[in-house]
């Protein structure tokens, strides 16, 4: 029974998203932990998929910064990005895009897939609500 549960659990963890997906694009980066969180709830009715990259070394972090064209060396950098080219900064015009947030302290980058204005608004509300509740 335990072996069966372990087998199911491992299968769950190693069952990756489709090839060509955002996760698939970065999952093979050296010295980089990559994860996809599916259905991250922003509120009771809206969720988003998030791909997270975390550098396992300073060299890996520098490579990530180069890949995403991040020039700042401290703090947090964030932008709206093209879904196919996350390094390309774009403006919100109602099209699907990525909200990219890069933290130098954590040496991590989050790519939040926004397919609708509803998700876009819910993400902004999530940030505002969390900041308000943490005061």
């Amino acid at each position: 029974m335990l072996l069966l549960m372990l087998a199911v659990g491992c299968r769950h963890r190693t069952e990756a998203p489709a090839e060509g997906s955002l996760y698939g694009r970065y999952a093979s980066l050296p010295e980089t932990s990559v994860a996809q969180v599916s259905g991250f709830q922003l509120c009771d009715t809206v969720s988003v998929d998030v791909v997270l990259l975390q550098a396992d070394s300073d060299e890996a972090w520098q490579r990530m910064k180069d890949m995403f064209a991040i020039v700042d060396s401290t703090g947090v950098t964030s932008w709206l990005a093209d879904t196919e080219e996350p390094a390309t900064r774009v403006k919100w015009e109602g099209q699907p895009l990525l909200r990219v947030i890069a933290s130098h302290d954590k040496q991590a980058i989050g790519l939040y897939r926004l397919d609708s204005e509803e998700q876009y608004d819910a993400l902004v509300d999530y940030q505002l609500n969390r900041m308000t509740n943490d005061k």
Partner: protein
Amino acid sequence: MNEKQFEELWVKAEAGSHAERLAAEYPAWRQKTRRTLSMAAGVALVLAVATPIALSPSQAGKYNKVYCNRAGIQDQQWVSLADELLMEG
């Protein structure tokens, strides 16, 4: 009529006037009581519906699945990272 008879009649007359006053004011009293009971029932209904909604936990921060290219990292660590980046960004 002696004094005692007069007093008895006076008491009856007073009781009669009270009875008339009660009869006149009863419909208004009954309407007021019904209105109060209706309002109380309405408040109870609203509370019965609103309380479970107000007390239900928010779904924010929950998730469906986590896929990862590394073993040994808990799903919740990634979910927390997703939350923390939003807080910083």
